[in-house]
């Protein structure tokens, strides 16, 4: 780890100005950034500590819940308004990391956390995310954990955030110091520039999230499958939000983690259900629609099957389908 400067601004304007330096990075909870820097996967000349900014509030005003970027994962998960109106968000958070990490980590940083791809995290290995053009060993290597959706010939690393999958399912908006970004537009697929993971500009600061309170979001759930019972990232995760009119699906959001290079929404799977009854047939069709464009590698083909099973199980639970 190389030496870096440290600054702790007291307001957003100062923070953004300081972050304009080349090689600068914000730090909030630090639960990911410090690991990346210690492992040599990332290095920065200037660290801007934003923990002194007043961005930690969680408030509901009319039909919008606003979550400050510095709200800690554990506080958001336990907040009554979140639990009542956005259960998928609370569940995704409680399925993330460990209690210690959740007490430390801020939600703004959570959606920016870097992939757990072992090649990315190893300073002794090439990686297009670290150094574009250097090559991706995961394509032909140990890719059991890698993406089947949204990948490219440059990168198939999975986005690790559970919270981001949930926020995508509830139509969240990302607030920054300079604009509002619909969550669906926030993360980008790797394409030929896997080092670009979001549309944030250099030094742009997430200040919070706005989430509409809707009947759809109120009936939402998160299912996470992983290699141990807790404190582990998803092999496959599904967030579903469901609004039924009688036996018919009025509206639905289906988003996925563990299978894609960014938090993944499947309009095709949603379309297979919208306006139809929730049955074994329609659920199966939604799963098929989800994986229609899947690209598998040597070790991750099982995810095609597993993600459909996860979707099936979650929709049955949420929709009360036997």
């Amino acid at each position, binding site marked *: 780890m190389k030496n870096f400067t440290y600054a702790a601004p007291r307001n957003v304007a100062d923070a953004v100005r300081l972050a304009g330096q080349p090689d600068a990075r914000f730090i909030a909870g630090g639960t990911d950034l410090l690991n990346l820097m210690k492992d040599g996967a990332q290095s920065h000349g200037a660290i801007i500590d934003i923990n002194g900014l007043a961005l930690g509030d969680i408030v509901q005003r009319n039909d919008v819940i606003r979550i400050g970027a510095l709200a800690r994962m554990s506080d958001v998960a336990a907040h009554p308004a979140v639990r009542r109106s956005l259960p998928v968000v609370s569940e995704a958070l409680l399925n993330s990391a460990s209690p210690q990490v959740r007490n430390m980590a801020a939600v703004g940083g959570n959606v920016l956390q870097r992939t757990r791809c*072992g090649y990315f995290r190893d*300073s002794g290995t090439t990686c297009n995310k670290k150094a574009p053009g250097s090559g991706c060993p995961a394509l032909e290597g140990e890719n*059991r954990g890698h993406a089947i959706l949204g990948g490219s010939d440059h990168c198939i690393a999975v986005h690790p955030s559970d919270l981001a999958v949930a926020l995508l399912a509830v139509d969240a908006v990302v607030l920054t110091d300079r604009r509002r970004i619909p969550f669906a537009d926030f993360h980008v697929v790797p394409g030929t520039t896997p080092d670009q993971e979001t549309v944030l500009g250099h030094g742009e600061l997430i200040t919070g999230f706005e989430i509409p309170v809707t009947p759809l979001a109120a009936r939402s759930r998160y299912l996470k499958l992983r*290699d141990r019972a*807790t404190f582990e990232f998803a092999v496959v995760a599904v967030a579903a939000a469901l609004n039924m009119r009688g036996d018919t699906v009025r509206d639905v959001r289906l988003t996925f983690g563990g299978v894609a290079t960014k938090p993944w929404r499947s309009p095709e799977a949603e379309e297979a259900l919208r306006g139809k009854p929730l049955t074994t047939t329609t659920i199966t069709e939604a799963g098929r629609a989800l994986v229609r464009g899947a690209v598998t590698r040597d070790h991750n083909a099982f995810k095609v099957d*597993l993600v459909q*099973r996860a979707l099936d199980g979650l929709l049955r639970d949420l929709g009360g389908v036997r």
Partner: protein
Amino acid sequence: MTVGRPVERVDGRAKVTGGARYTADRTLPGMLYSYLVMGTIARGRVTAVDTAAARAVPGVVEVFTHENAPRLTSDQHFMPLQGTQIHYNGQIVAITVATTLEQAQEAAELVRVTYAPETPKAVIADALTEVYLPANQEVIVGDPTAGLAAAEVTVTQNYSSPPHHHNPIEPHATVAQWDGDRLTVHETSQGVVNAQRTFATTFGIPQTNVRVLAPYLGGGFGGKSPVWPHSLLNAAIARQLGRPAKMVLARSQMYSIVSHRAEFRQQVTLGAKRDGTLTALVHHSTQQLSRTSENMYSHSISSRMLYACPNIHTRQQGVRLDVPTSRFMRSPQMASHFGLETALDELSYQLGIDPVELRRRNYTDVNPTTGERFSSRFLLDCYKLGADAFGWSRRNPKPGSTRDGHEFVGWGMATEAHDHNANPSSAMVRMAADGTVLSQTATQDIGTGTYTVFTQVVADALGVPLNQVKVELADTNFPPAALSAGSGTIASVTGAVNAAALAVRTAVVQLAVSNPASPLHGVSVERIITQHGYLFSPDRSRRESYRAVMARHGAPVQNTSSMTNARGYSTGAVFVEVRVDPRYGRVRVTRGVGAYDAGRVMNHKTARSQVIGGFTWGIGNALMEHTVLDRRTARVVNPNLSTYLLAVNADVPEIDAIFVNKPDPVSTALGARGFGETPITGVPAAIGNAIFHATGRRIRDLPFTQDKLLY
């Protein structure tokens, strides 16, 4: 009497308050920090090392490469930095030394190494034609071919398990300080005496010139048994630069230079009569070796020692790959044990005999390989105690017969078994003039409870309260004692500690009864009772405290004793319940019961902790743990605890530990046997057997991740 009781750890408070000082906590005046640069190819040569940028970092004192590193040799290990050859990925290719850790780390990132790489072989599958049988790795008992011919039922199956890394919570650390030709090393060591010998040999100085200390260890699991080359290099650097030097390994560095459990493949063939009696046991295995060593560390002991079978054939093959040399890792016999205990379960279904009953029918009091009788073996009691506590008799043997909601419920079991070391050991016990007692011995507490058990042993031998006794360990200035490996600490050292304490007792009693000033004057030594810090006459009408006797004597009473113990074999039986969600292939272990014959139990709390730790390790081994090697580069892809998965609390159910608790008559350790490695060995097979019972699916390749259970 405190031995046997669940006495709390005497070092617990120090450990949970941060008062215990571990090796990496040592800081010496003028100390330098060494930091390793690890290679990124597995095979080939270093062609150039550019250290200019590293040397330019402020505070950097020296950068060592193969060109200027101290010349060292090792009779145990391949020594890096002595030439350009690369034998495995993550080999040490340079060491930076600076006045702060951060400077050394920054410099390490700036060292540029150029290689002439060659294509490596990383896994057994890539070198199947190169499998060979090293010398002395085949044992044949009876006539296995005839035994198979005589069988009415046979099972032949292949099993495999991945490499594993030890991952103690405490990283390896070493702090070396020279004073002329005298060397002091604070070393994360499971064996300070062995380490002393290694340092002395390496530097060509008398063993008495080397002092090694390791008062606290945050786990070792075999990975801290040898002195690794990085510690020798750090000591050589300290000597060359004339200042103390400290080196602490980063977690990722622990995946290439401090050994691992080898990748392992095995084929087990069992022949049996219809009644379940084994007629032949043929166990062929292949384990990964390195380019620089053909030593093997995963032995087929269970197949040779556990069951009554007249015809046994074990054949332990190896294959050299471009990977680091493996080594003993906690319960090294578990790799082969998994195959044997799974094959027995498969046989039980072929025969239609209950798995416990099948094992009972092949029980033996006699070592089937040597024909010698075991000094004590209560394995049949373990089957009974475990099965009863678990409720095994209620088991419907039919796979897939029990369902609870979405989940299938399965019950499985396995025998557990591991042998243990016993090494000659000595210990000192001294009662001071104020009646307090100090015991010193150069064995270690690697986290298992040695401090606590020896405190109990000394207190009981003397008849003093626990809080009157202090135990000090892991300093080569103390009497030499056993390596803490192979489950050997308690078994090896207890006898010496006890003998020294008893000798001190006799000496103090002698002081009392021979002195007219003592109320006990004239009582014969043999008839004195000692208890609660007092010496009593036989009818307890007269007494005198140790403190009073010692105050009158005015000088300490001390004894150093030595003792040799016998090696032993501790067995048990483990029973598990799993729940398998067939929708997702998800396995949960929901119940665990183990019953064990460990000889006499010295402390029920620390012994139970060994069971909990072992069972937890076994769950991780069964369901998740594995080192991922990139097959093209032979480089570890998951060298950290966020991707190398170990079981966490949520994976572990309540575990019921039962002990037969009968002393082994040949044990000089108050009847105790070594035990720590036993309660892991059967767990992976028991879980696999339970998964089969739950679902009818047999998985023979560890770990049992959910992708293998989708159906």
